[in-house]
Every structure is written in C-alpha cells, then in structure tokens.
C-alpha cells in the first residue's frame, strides 16, 4: 500500500487546482496524521511533523498557519518553474503546464492563467526588473562604501541597459513572441507600467534629480534607446552580441550629446535675448 502521506504542500485556495495525491485532508487534526503513521509502522516519516491544524483544502476552520501560501505566491512559483520550459515550448500555456508538473501539481493548474501566456511574460519581465533594481542598489552601496568608483552617466546607462538586456539571452529565440504578447491591447497597461518603472529606476540610480521637464525628456530618450537596442538584439548573430553593445554605446552617446546640444542651444538663445533686450533699452533712451 503506497503511503498516502501528502508531501509538504501548501494548501490552495483555488479548488480548481487538482493534486496528484488523491487523498484530501478534510480533518485538519494532528491526530489523524498520527493514525496514518500507525498504520504504516514500517514506513516512518520523521520529517512529517504533527504540527498544528493543517489548513484544509476548502478553507474550513479558516485558520492560517505559517504554512499557508497565498494564491499569488503559488502562481509566482508556477510561473518561475515554467520559465525553464520556455526555450522549448515558447511563452505558452504548455510551458506553464510543464512548470506546474515539476512542482508536483497537475497540468490543469495551467488553467489558472490566460491561455496566451501573458502572465508568464509579464512575470518574467517583472522578475528581470527586480533583479536589475537589486543590482543597481548593490552598485550604489559599493560606491557609498567607497569600494567602487562612481561611473560617469554615459557609462552607467550603458551598463544598466546591457545588464538588463543580457537577462534575455537564455530566452532570446522566443523573445520576439514575448514582445508581441506584451503589445497585446489587454497587456499594454501592465507592460507599459513595467517599462516606465524600469527606466525610472535606472535614472534614479544614475543620480537624476531633475524636477522640471527634463524628467520627461530623459526618460523618453532612455526608453527609446532601450527599445531600439532590444530590437537590434533580436537580429544580432555576432559573438556574445557585441554588435548590440556597440549599437547601445552609440545610442547612449547620441542621447548624451543631444542633452549637451540642447543646453548649448538654450544658453545661446538666452544670450541672444539678453542682447536684444540691451539693444531695445539703448534704443529707447
């Protein structure tokens, strides 16, 4: 008789998700699990602690122990597991189903998500953005502690964009598919949100403190740089994407140049206006 003990899985609020293990624990009492032990004297499971009431399948009793995992956390775990299968299956429900399988859940768990793989792509992008933020935070700490030199803005932006784009390399074959998913109308709010907060993060760590319209121009320019570089990367077949990084270097240099030129134009304009005012005063006297 196979031991009917369920692996230490967290209870799920979603009743639609089916488990491989058929036995359901309707009576979340420590004593019932003890009874199971008694019937299998040759099969001691020392790791099965008879802790407090296990949250039941249907949420009866309503108690939340530390074991309780929210639906959202479970979804995150499934999607993270699914990423491994993206190179093979693409950003699809199949990949999600495979991911669910590795966690010991039934493939029907993929039914929790949209069939077009939207959540998988958005989850991945969100994860990459978080990793980038952590990386930039680390770098900032190192500079503050004096362990590293503060990079000039141009190089900082280049390195940040490169670091973020490198996270796509394992999935580069299927990335065009992901981009088209991100552009679906119902995904645009979420994907735009992720893009803008990522760009804002990069500028924040680059030390941008503008409180005027520059705030917008800088972010718009960097967004343009990021998007075009991403597209170039899709078509790049050079070793370690060196063409892409060279493209990036040129675009960032252009952007910084544009900023300098704009400043120059402005100060020239101001000088001209002052000259005219002076001339007007002279003439009027």
């Amino acid at each position, binding site marked *: 008789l196979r031991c009917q003990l369920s692996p230490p899985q967290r209870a799920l609020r979603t009743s639609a998700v089916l488990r491989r293990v058929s036995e359901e624990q309707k009576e979340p009492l420590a004593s019932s699990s003890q009874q199971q032990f008694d019937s299998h004297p040759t099969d001691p499971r020392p790791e099965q602690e008879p802790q407090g009431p296990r949250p039941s399948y249907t949420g009866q009793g309503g108690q939340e122990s530390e074991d309780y995992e929210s639906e959202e956390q479970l979804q995150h775990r499934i999607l993270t597991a699914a990423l491994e299968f993206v190179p093979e299956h693409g950003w699809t429900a199949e990949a999600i189903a495979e991911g669910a399988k590795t966690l010991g859940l039934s493939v029907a768990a993929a039914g929790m998500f949209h069939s077009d793989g939207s959540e998988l792509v958005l989850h991945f992008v*969100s994860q990459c953005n978080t990793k980038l933020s952590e990386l930039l935070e680390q770098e900032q700490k190192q500079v503050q502690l004096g362990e590293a030199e503060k990079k000039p803005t141009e190089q900082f932006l280049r390195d940040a964009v490169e670091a973020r784009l490198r996270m796509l390399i394992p999935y580069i074959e299927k990335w065009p598919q992901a981009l088209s998913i991100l552009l679906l109308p*119902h995904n645009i*709010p979420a994907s735009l949100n992720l893009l803008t907060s990522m760009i804002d993060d990069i500028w924040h760590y680059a030390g941008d403190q503008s409180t*005027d319209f520059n705030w917008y121009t800088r972010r718009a320019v960097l967004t343009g740089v990021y998007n075009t570089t991403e597209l170039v990367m899709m078509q790049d077949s050079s070793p370690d994407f060196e063409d892409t990084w060279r493209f990036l270097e040129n675009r960032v240099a252009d952007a910084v140049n544009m900023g300098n030129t704009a400043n120059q134009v402005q100060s020239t304009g101001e000088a001209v206006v002052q000259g005219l005012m002076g001339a007007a005063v002279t003439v009027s006297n």
Partner: protein
Amino acid sequence: PAGGVSLRLCSTRVTLEGINKPLIERIIRVDHAGEYGANRIYAGQMAVLGRSSVGPIIRQMWNQEKDHLKKFNELMVAYRVRPTVLLPFWNVAGFVLGAGSALLGKKGAMACTVAVEESISDHYNSQIRALMEDPEKYKDLLQVF
C-alpha cells in the same frame, strides 16, 4: 496594479511602508506645480513693475516663493515623484498672469497676489486635513506645511 491580469506584479519602485503613495505623489506634484506657477507669476510682475516703487516688495515675496519651490524640489526627489507634465504650460501661463495683472497697475498686481495666496492656503488646508488622518505616518510632510 496590472490591468486585466489576475497576478499582482511587484513594482520595482521602493515602497515606503504603510503610506498612501498615490496620495503623497499627488500632493507633492500639485504643490510643486503651484509653487512653480507662483514663481512665474512674480517673475511676470517683476518684469513690468520691477523698477517701480513696489518692486522691492514684489522681489521679497518672490524670494519667499523661491524658497518654497526649493523645498518642494527636495521633496520631489526624496519621494521619487514625477513633476507635472504641464510645467511648460504653467511656465508661460504664470508669467502672462503676473505680467497681465501688473499692467493693470500696482493694485492689480496686489489683488492678483492676494487671490493666489488665498486659494493656495485653502488648498494646503485641505491637504493637511487629508494627511491628518494619520499624523504619525505623515509627520515629515506635515512639518513642511
């Protein structure tokens, strides 16, 4: 928060625990725009009445506004709030209002100033009321007011 997707995606922005970020962002953005506009109004008035007898008074009030604007600039950076996209508009509109009211004479300029200050103080009072719902959380911001 994502649109139609059922997952809540974690934002990369650092969240300051417990505070109502959208509320703070709106407050700082609006107040910054207001102070910026006020600065431009005084600049417009100075352009017309700068060399008259009220010039020094206007300049003094303008300097006060510059301080306020500086304070909001600092808050904006600290809370990572974006400035209003209408800044170029307020730039021009404020200057025109200031210059226009100054062209009506000294009384016109003063009347404009009084009106602006009154509406600002009403506005700030309602913001203070909103923040006072939880004085502890918003201690820093309330001190600015």
